[in-house]
């Protein structure tokens, strides 16, 4: 296993005491595999990704275990983390507009990890950056390398960010909503590019997204997060076809259906995600869930294991096949 995470928890220390943003995160990722992480805003997806990079905010406490290439990352010294970041693990960010420093040339920024981790001279790294920009199929890489970020479009900048991430051939790339800020056609091309790079280099990918269609099309396995908990995980086609968790099912039903009759309203999930300190003893989805029964409000949902890599965190997970949403009967 390339990456094994068990019982990952992230607490944010605030003036009102600690808040648990991520809890009980357990998942694994193999070489060359791609894992989708989906969930609503504030479900802990990004915090999980940042915890893997060791980039959580000052006031965050990370506990549990993160084993990467057989090495424990939690509690690792910052210098050792610096050597890993950008070399073995790289990250692609959501906002290509702000993830590049406006005051430096694109090529110099793409060259940065090569200078840091490969000890290349700035000139050699710049030349390599031009090759990398060409590799991510940026038109006219010479010009792009010499340009400042403002001169590139959003899609071009995201390609530059990807070039920066893959420069040192990382084993794991974490992409945090890499296409959310781009329009749909550019999104498709960027995702195809990431797929291609993954196929040729055998790197593993962790794709954080709130778009189930993106995850369905580009990931082998998926974890569904809600209020910091992994609600369901498993092979992507199985999870999306036969969700064993009411939250996953509600997310799937909230998508627009192709061919649905005009004027039909989309199904929504009633209510809004709980604020972290409002989570009581029970399931965080209790109340918003059509299948809520008394035990949901009082007891945390158990992990129900359907197969080696298929988990659902729900009191009624085993009944899911036969239960109809809405009626609860």
């Amino acid at each position, binding site marked *: 296993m390339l990456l094994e995470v068990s019982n990952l928890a992230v607490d944010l220390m605030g003036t009102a005491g600690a808040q648990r943003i991520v809890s009980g995160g357990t998942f694994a990722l193999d070489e060359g595999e791609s894992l989708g992480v989906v969930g609503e805003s504030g479900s802990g997806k990004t915090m999980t990704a940042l915890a893997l990079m060791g*980039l959580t905010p000052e006031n965050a406490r990370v506990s549990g275990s993160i084993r990467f290439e057989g090495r424990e990352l939690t509690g690792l010294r910052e210098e050792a983390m610096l050597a890993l970041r950008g070399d073995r693990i790289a990250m692609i960010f959501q906002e290509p507009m702000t*993830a*590049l*420093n406006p005051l430096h040339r694109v090529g110099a920024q793409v060259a940065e990890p090569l200078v840091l981790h490969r000890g290349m001279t700035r000139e050699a790294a710049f030349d390599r950056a031009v090759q990398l920009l060409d590799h991510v199929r940026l038109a006219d890489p010479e010009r792009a390398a010499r340009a400042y970020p403002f001169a590139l479009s959003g899609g071009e900048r995201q390609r530059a960010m990807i070039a920066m991430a893959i420069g040192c051939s990382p084993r794991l790339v974490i992409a945090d909503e890499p296409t959310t800020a781009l329009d749909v056609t550019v999104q498709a091309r960027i995702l195809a590019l990431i797929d291609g790079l993954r196929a040729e280099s055998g790197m593993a990918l962790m794709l954080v997204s709130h778009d189930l269609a993106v995850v369905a099309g580009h990931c082998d396995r998926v974890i569904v997060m809600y209020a910091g908990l992994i609600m369901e995980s498993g092979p992507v086609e199985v999870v999306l076809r036969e969700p064993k968790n009411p939250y996953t099912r509600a997310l799937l039903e909230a998508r627009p259906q192709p061919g649905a009759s005009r004027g039909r309203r989309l199904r929504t999930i009633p209510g809004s995600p709980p604020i972290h300190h409002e989570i009581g003893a029970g399931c965080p989805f209790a109340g918003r869930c059509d299948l809520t029964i008394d035990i949901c409000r009082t007891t945390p949902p158990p992990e129900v294991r359907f197969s080696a890599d298929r988990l659902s965190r729900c009191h009624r997970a085993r009944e899911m096949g036969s239960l109809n949403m809405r009626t609860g009967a």
Partner: protein
Amino acid sequence: MSAGGLWRPRVSFSLWAGAILALMLLLAAAVSFVWTPYPPAAIDIPHKLASPSLAHLFGTDDLGRDVASQLLTGSRISILVGLVAVGIGLVFGIVLGLIASFSGGWIEDAVMRLSDFVFAFPALLSAIMLTSTYGPGVINAIIAIGVLYVPIIAKVTRATANGVLAREYALAARAAGRGPLSIAFDHVLPNIAPALIVQATIQFAGAILAEAALSYLGLGAQPPQASWGRMLAEAQNVLYNAPSLAIYPGAAIALSVLGLNLLGDGLRDALDPKLKARS
């Protein structure tokens, strides 16, 4: 700024007027090194309190010293104090501000509360206290003014650096494996430079004013050093006989301070379009 458009600085009236006045100040100091109409400290009692004439462009003071020569030479002290005091403020302020911003937590709190503590005392009174404790003189005046600038620059640095560190490219730089020192120099400093340049220009004006005040009180430049503040103090003795003697150095101080403040405002408009939009 529209993507694809070239960055065009906004050249405002403030910028022009400020730049011209500041340049005049620099020019006066530069000229004084190579030429003054008379030695600025040359006493010439027979010609004391002379009216402006071709021989003495701004007349002479109560000891017969040429006012024009003194004004030219006095600008040196103003610039020296401004440069060094602002330099002290910048060096220590930036270092402290960056340390505060990068470390966060109690270190940040400690640096900021210490700054507040310095702010709690009126700047000029603190400078008077320092110079009267450690002895009057230009060096001590510079140190006193510079020390009081450290917390101001530290606050500006911390606030703007926190803004930059919150940007995604700072996070992206960390994700690429960069250490805090290289992020500070490569990402933070260039991005906060406009705010610091503006702040330094305005503090420069403040330093000139502070030096004049200290010298006026006899705590800054000592005779025979020519200084605008001292010229004001000496003019006070003969204020009823020769009021113009107070007007010349007063105008020199006012124009320099005005010029630098205008320059600071103009630079802010030119370098930081966001600030302009808000004010």
